[in-house]
């Protein structure tokens, strides 16, 4: 699917619902929570999550955050697994085209708001942009302590020993930290935060990012944020420094060697090809190559 076909989708405007679905009081409540989140980077702020017309787990947190900050002049991009054309991204983009009458785009550069599930775009973000993450489980300590009443105390006391022990246990058992996505980060030397289930490949993009990053967890009723240019460090050890996934292959479509690659099974005989997970990045590179060829 190319960029043009997604632009200006039919948007008749839903009658009977407020602009961007949520009522203004709810949006104000959300924005208050978001302001608090921005003021305390990495801290999980409870908020009164609403039922949305899509199921929990489909991005209700991200959708509520976007609904509370979006305005008619915004340009919205929605991705899932890095792609603009995955079913859920299509559905959420349509939701806002209908309820908020905004222009939608697949371009990471043109977008003022990018809502994402499981990826950070390969294209570097810039000042004034907002990246909204859909978060399933906001609590980084959840697998180590099931109780919210306990984990809130642990954050308050910065009692993060268990997390380091768990990473160390990985090294002791496997010789390396075996976390591949939702890899925990330390925000401004204060709170440990879950970056949402992005591959650890994307973790470095969170650090010192010029864009505002907002995280919404609808079912768990939490928002948190990374204001622009926040220091975000992936947890590691001196002798086991953090590293990201690498591929021997390059993208079969655009030839990129620097992007996160999805493995696509091509037959039942072990055939594989690797393609960019970020479809816009891939298309953009392809278009640039086409232009080069045309001028050559």
């Amino acid at each position, binding site marked *: *699917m190319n960029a043009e076909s997604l632009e200006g989708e039919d948007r008749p405007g839903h009658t009977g619902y*407020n602009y961007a*679905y*949520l*009522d203004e009081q709810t949006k104000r409540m959300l924005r208050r929570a978001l302001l608090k989140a921005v003021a305390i980077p990495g801290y999980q702020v*409870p*908020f*009164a*999550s609403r*039922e*949305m*017309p899509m*199921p*929990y*787990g*489909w991005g*209700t947190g991200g959708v509520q955050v976007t609904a509370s900050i979006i305005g008619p002049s915004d340009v919205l991009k929605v991705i*899932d*697994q*890095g*792609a603009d*054309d*995955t*079913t*859920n991204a*299509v*559905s959420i983009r*349509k939701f806002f085209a209908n309820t908020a009458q905004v222009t939608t785009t697949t371009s990471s550069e043109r977008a003022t708001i990018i809502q994402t*599930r*499981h*990826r950070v775009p390969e294209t570097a973000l810039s000042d004034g942009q907002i990246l909204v993450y859909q978060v*399933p489980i906001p609590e980084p300590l959840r697998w180590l302590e*099931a*109780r*919210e*009443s306990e984990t809130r105390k642990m954050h308050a006391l910065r009692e993060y020993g268990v997390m380091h022990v768990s990473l160390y246990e990985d090294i002791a058992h*496997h*010789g*390396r930290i*075996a*976390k*591949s*996505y*939702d890899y925990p980060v330390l925000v401004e030397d204060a709170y440990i935060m879950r970056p949402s*289930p992005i*591959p*650890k*490949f994307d973790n470095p993009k969170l650090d010192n990012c010029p864009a505002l990053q907002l995280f919404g967890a609808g*079912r768990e*009723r*939490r928002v948190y944020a990374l204001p622009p240019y926040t220091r975000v460090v992936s947890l590691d050890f001196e002798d086991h420094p953090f590293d990201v*996934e690498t591929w021997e292959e390059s993208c079969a479509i655009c030839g990129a060697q620097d992007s*996160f*690659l*999805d*493995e*696509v099974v091509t037959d039942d005989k072990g055939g594989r090809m690797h*393609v960019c*997970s970020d*479809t816009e990045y891939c298309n953009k590179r392809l278009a640039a190559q086409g232009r080069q060829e045309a001028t050559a």
Partner: protein
Amino acid sequence: MYVAVKGGERAIENAHKLLAEARRGDPEVPELSLPQIEQQLSLAVDRVMTEGSLHDRELAALALKQARGDMIEAIFLVRAYRTTLPRFGASEPLDTDNMAIRRRVSATYKDLPGGQILGPTFDYTHRLLDFALAEDGVHPEARVADDPLPQSMPRVTGLLDAEGLIESSEVDDSRPVADVTREAESFPADRDARLQALARGDEGFLLAMGYSTQRGFGNTHPFAGEIRMGEVAVEFIPEELGFAIEIGEITVTECEMLNQFKGSDTHAPKFTRGYGLAFGQCERKAMSMALVDRALRARELGEASGAPAQDEEFVLYHSDNVQATGFSEHLKLPHYVDFQSELSILRNLRRDHDTKAARKEAAE
């Protein structure tokens, strides 16, 4: 091929059309009307209203029709509608003492003032399929009693209270009642928030939790003190009037469990209460709710034993079926990227493992 993997917009649209067609079924068969659902599937309507936290029989019937009879989907539809409605305020507490009773039973006294009123219940039916119902045109009629029921009936808990055998129900009017749909949950939860969460909790989940307490996982020694079902008036105080006016009448089922309490250093032995309330006739739900409400008071009463039904965070975080179904079912959404990361780690771990094994072999 690549595009097929990523799905697409047209596929979604076509799926929606197919869904609409499947919902309607064979067009030769007459379409269900909302009054039919409301009247003849009334217990389904009651459950959708209860767990959807919205009292509107017509909307609940519409939700059931749209959801093809899927309870949780219908509840979800109602919730997503409810959340957009403006909030005027909280009604006055329902006065269930003055319920226009259609059913009222107690398991603790053979007879009591007002009597046992069985009402429309499955309790004593034989569960034999009634093949006569397969045919149209059955118009059963029940005879109206000669004398109407008394205007109000004393409660079993009231009778015990008069003797001081039961804890008094504490009323705290000092602060506004919680609204779990407008605040994030916090723990320990206050009882008002807890009862609200239980009232909209999944019937099946609460049933299993309540049942587990009866099988020894946090026994509360319950008696069904009283179950009553009937119509109650809903009163509301509009700010501009300053006094209560009746805004309507709803059917509710209320259950008060009586539970043993052996006493502690500071409290004399007495009966304690578990409370359940549901819209319409949701008796199983009201009873389960009352069992779980009481089980969740374990810590307060100093009897916590670590049973699942006594664990507030466990019960309240997992009782909401709209949340649960969303998150469990979201696993069918694409996870290509995370899976790719896992593949990559797994291959590395396997390579490390093989190298280590080879080295070990070489050393031997």
